């Protein structure tokens, strides 16, 4: 059994490690990169809801500004997505 394990380990080449690192990096990139936008968009929605509850007549303007702000917040998430895509398919 030990012999088998040693055979497996010696069969791993540098390219295999690079491929594994690529997938792990893409997963980490997306997972960690999605935390910030999620919190940010949630905060935007929460405060917009606060505003709407206080002033229902402002709903249209608040909704528009909220969507715009969320789209801008999302940019960092999109950047990490692009990096993950580059890691997976380009490098």
């Amino acid at each position, binding site marked *: 059994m030990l012999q088998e394990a040693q055979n497996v380990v010696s069969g791993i080449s540098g390219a295999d490690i690079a491929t594994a690192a690529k997938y792990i990096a893409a997963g980490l990139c997306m997972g960690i990169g999605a935390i910030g936008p999620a919190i940010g968009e949630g905060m935007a929605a929460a405060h917009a809801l606060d505003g709407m509850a206080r002033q229902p007549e402002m709903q249209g303007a608040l909704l*528009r500004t909220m969507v*715009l702000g969320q*789209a801008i917040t999302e940019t960092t998430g*999109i*950047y990490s997505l692009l990096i993950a*895509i580059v890691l997976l*398919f380009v490098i």
Partner: protein
Amino acid sequence: MFEQLAGLLTHLGEKRIAVLRLFGAEVRFDTTALVMSWVVIVLLILLALWLRRGLRQPVEEKPNRTQAALDGLIDILKSQLSGNFASERLAIMMFPFISTLFLYVLLSNWLGVVPYLSSPTQNINITMGLALLVFFMSHVLAVKLKGTRRYLKGFLEPYAFMLPINLVGEVAKPLSHAFRLFGNILAGTILITVVMVKFAPIIVPPVLSIFFGLFFGGIQAFVFAILAVAYINVAVED
């Protein structure tokens, strides 16, 4: 399995490249995106021609249903714009540009829902082109409305040593504008393709398609247009 998935997804990004030799330089075109872009343009023109039938000046007769619906739509778009622009004059001036941009991006995003067609906006070159259009539009308008002196002085605000940061900020605007649209549409396409080929070939993909293609496509088109408005507004205002 990962090998297959990677192969599948590289196939997604496969492009039919046409190379044009122009004065010794190679010009490369992604023909898929080019053809899809033309499909969108032709669809928009046909739609406009079709909706134009039966329009009449609302002087003596009451408008038919198409005209009433279109009037309502234009009113909504106009009110959205005049709420966001600094002045009413600017809103009227920019209305054709912004609404054309919106309709083009909207139809481009929705084109990905149709089988055998792909969204032109999942190509970075197309979104970058649109973003650069907005970029040049905002700066030319700023020079025109504010004058060259005040335009250049705007880069020294609030302090002169902020110039590099202001310049980086200006360059980052079209980049993030383009990457946002591109990333959103590409992510939707990749997700739908992976689910369709690997996990659930029936029932689930149409639902995902409606969610990512129609819902997110609509929101992203709206966001693209509103951000164009915001960038132009920021560049033009004092």
